């Protein structure tokens, strides 16, 4: 294998027709049991463009791309690559056809190095060393060309998500992909990481590569794509030139109704201090200090937004406050100190004290995916008197409660017997939110409330959080989405390297300043 070759604006790969679209799908259909995930979908993706695909959760975007990548087999329809009919029975065939895919959930081996992940499946010979040596050289080249710097010898598990994503892109480039599919690549990225990614994508496009980008964020579509296709309920509803459309039009195409793109909220009326954190320190099991003395306050009736690049201690902050990990320092809730270690520093005691917690990672922490919806509604609250009869659980009460919550939070499908794993991300998030918000806590901890959630659901979730604030509750919001921080927060704290870099009021700052603070620079000084 040689380094990807590229000449002016066009791939060197033999193309039967220079005018043929890079990809053309004709009449693709795919059903999972009774669910028709893709219905007779046809789409053309022009060579050398960035093509966006949007749609609600469960619209069928990932399914369509998985078919293109040979992960699923379509029930009917055909695929044309560069104008030629191509059979893609497996990923090997897709790779041969020059397609690379970056999955929403990365396909990386956590305890392998970057280099090992890159060469995996594309090794040169039976022995590793030559491949690794060559890949290392190539990575240097690619890094130079596309601003894709990563430490080749770092273990994936020690890398942030942004870096992991670069590794995924490098994997595709290493395989000389001409067509790159990215499924919700920015869901976990900070704004600056996302900007960097888009610079890379534009660079790749200018080299002649074709890029398909799936996202829920209309701003990104407007920013970076040339064309955009909209999917709804398994069907392709429209394909338009990005230049000829607007976010509100796209939103309407997606959801089938008008969507509020900005949250309406009245100014906060902060009450007494609910949460007071002083000199909070956390050391992880590797002995690294993750929180280096945090001080903050959240008052009743206000939302404190914590911004920061992922991995700067926000997760640890939430986990300590939620009782998942131990810490030192003082934390008081309504003036009463909380235990930060020992048997009473656990999630149960925190809930009794009046703290509710919507964790950042709903799959890992917030839900038991193999439990039913009603079982998940009791999760963490399973020993509350309303759900118990002695040592037994009052399942009827729990189910009735779940039905009510599902209705009020518009969870679809509203079937409390379904397993959590069979709901879409947005609906899973609503189940968690309903559980935590409806406990009417004094303090709500929320991490990444809208990650991977479509705009219809985002609107809904944001409204609920504002309502809770207006009911006089304190909310600590952690998000890497600056948009979200700006939309919801009454005060903004920026975290960097386990410390609070400073606090700003949303009206008196902007993304640039926050971005600098998030990078560890004092925004005010400059």
């Amino acid at each position, binding site marked *: 294998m040689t380094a990807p070759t590229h000449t002016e604006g066009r791939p060197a790969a033999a193309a039967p027709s220079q005018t043929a679209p890079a990809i053309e799908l004709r009449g693709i259909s795919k059903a999972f049991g009774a669910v028709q995930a893709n219905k007779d979908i046809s789409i053309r993706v022009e060579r050398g463009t960035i093509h966006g695909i949007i749609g609600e959760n469960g619209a069928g975007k990932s399914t369509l791309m998985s078919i293109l990548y040979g992960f699923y087999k379509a029930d009917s329809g055909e695929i044309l690559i560069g104008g030629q009919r191509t059979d893609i029975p497996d990923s090997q065939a897709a790779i041969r056809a020059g397609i690379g895919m970056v999955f929403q959930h990365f396909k990386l081996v956590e305890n392998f190095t970057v280099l090992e992940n890159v060469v995996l499946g594309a090794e040169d010979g039976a022995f590793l060393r030559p491949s690794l040596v060559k890949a290392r050289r190539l990575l240097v080249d690619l890094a130079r060309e596309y601003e894709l710097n990563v430490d080749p010898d770092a273990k994936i598990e020690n890398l942030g998500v942004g870096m992991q994503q670069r590794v995924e892109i490098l994997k595709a480039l290493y395989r000389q992909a001409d067509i790159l599919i990215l499924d919700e690549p920015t869901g976990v990225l900070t704004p600056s990481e996302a900007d960097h990614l888009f610079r890379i994508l534009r660079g790749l496009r200018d080299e002649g590569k074709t890029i398909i980008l799936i996202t829920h964020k209309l701003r990104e579509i407007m920013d970076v794509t040339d064309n955009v296709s909209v999917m709804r309920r398994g069907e392709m509803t429209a394909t338009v030139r990005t230049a000829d459309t607007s976010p509100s039009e796209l939103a309407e195409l997606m959801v089938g109704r008008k969507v509020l793109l900005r949250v309406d909220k009245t100014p906060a009326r902060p009450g007494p201090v609910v949460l007071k954190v002083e000199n909070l320190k956390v050391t992880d099991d590797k002995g690294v200090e993750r929180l280096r003395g945090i001080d903050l306050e959240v008052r009743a009736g206000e939302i404190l937004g914590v911004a920061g690049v992922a991995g700067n201690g926000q997760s640890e902050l939430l986990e300590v406050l939620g009782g*998942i990990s131990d810490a030192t320092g003082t934390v008081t809730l309504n003036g009463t100190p909380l235990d930060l270690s020992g048997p009473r520093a656990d999630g149960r005691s925190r809930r009794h004290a009046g703290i509710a917690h919507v964790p950042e990672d709903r799959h890992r922490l917030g839900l038991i995916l*193999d*439990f039913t919806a009603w079982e998940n509604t009791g999760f963490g609250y399973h020993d509350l008197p309303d759900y118990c009869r002695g*040592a037994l659980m009052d399942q009827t009460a729990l189910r009735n409660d779940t039905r009510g919550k599902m209705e009020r939070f518009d969870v679809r499908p509203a079937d409390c017997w379904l397993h959590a794993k069979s709901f879409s991300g947005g609906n899973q998030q609503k189940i968690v939110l309903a559980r935590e918000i409806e406990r009417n806590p004094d303090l709500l901890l929320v991490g990444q409330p809208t990650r991977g959630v479509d705009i219809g659901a985002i609107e809904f979730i944001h409204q609920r959080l504002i309502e809770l604030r207006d009911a006089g509750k304190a909310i600590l919001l952690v998000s890497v989405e600056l948009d979200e921080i700006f939309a919801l927060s009454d005060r903004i704290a920026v975290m960097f390297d386990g410390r609070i870099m400073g606090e700003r009021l949303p009206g008196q700052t902007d993304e640039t300043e926050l971005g600098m603070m998030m990078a560890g620079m004092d925004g005010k000084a400059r």
Partner: protein
Amino acid sequence: MDTMPRWADIALIPLINLTLALLVSALVIALIGENPAQAMGVMIRGAVGSAYGWGYTLYYATNFIFTGLAVAVAFHARLFNIGGEGQAALGGLGVAIVCLSVPWPHWTLALPAAVLGGALFGAAWAAIPAWLQATRGSHIVITTIMFNFIASALLVYLLVNVLKVPGSMAPETARFPEGARLPSAYDWGAWMGFGRSAPLNVAFFVALACCVAVWVLIWKTRLGYEIRAFGQSEAAAKYAGIRPVRTIMITMLISGGLAGLMAVNAVQGEAERLVIDSVQGAGFVGIAVALMGRSHPLGVLLAALLFGALYQGGAELEFEMPAISREMIVVIQALVILFTGALDNMVRGPVEGLFRRRRKGAT
């Protein structure tokens, strides 16, 4: 996804699997030069064809219910308890101590005490591996295997040097006094045709009660909810305030206790004394029973009955057709485990396809 009606899922598929296992067994019997039809007939009649057969089938099944439930409960917390063998052996010690140390006036008093003794000793033997897993992260699979060996050494020592009747050759305790002996099937079920020899005894009802208790525990109680949640995701359990150490300890104590209860059947009910190796591999069969029963008490009950029937049918086979050596039964068991447990999808796939096609045809 509901591609199959429920009855097909829980009855048809296992039945096909079982048939396949028996067919292959028949093939093996034919290969060693015996008549498979006759052999199968002997086995089935021997296991379930008479009250006599049932007396044994249910006795063996009782053992497997206890050890199967033990493995199943631990499985719900994603703990693989291979230590049923040792825990049941220690349970035997507990039962023997209870039965021998008090002059019990009547079995109705001795039984609850023995249940307590067996469960306590079994639980105690599970406690150390559990504690090491919970606090030191020592892999419970290794520690429970080790504890099986340690248990057998301990029991040989105690039986030879401490508990043996002086002057006797046999490394076994004295026979339990009259008041500590459990009524056998003959005592309460003679009208059903159970003979004097039936080892089946009231411990069977203890086992059934345990099935119900485990079902309630796992699916109806808060503790069961916590155990299942912990088994699904330790991280999420922590988020919910479910304490890992406590959950591991409680689960393993229950598991060990259940294994220990096996002694109520085998030691108190049947042998009426403690002998060397009173467990006879039932701890390991319990693993197969739990796996095949999908860790559900009803499944465990059915799988235990199946294995009990195989044990008893096999014994009859051995008696009626001496040319078939007793290892044939082990082979049949293996094939049953293989087909009904591990190769389940081999049958499931085609059957599902059949139903899907039928449904498509209907709509």
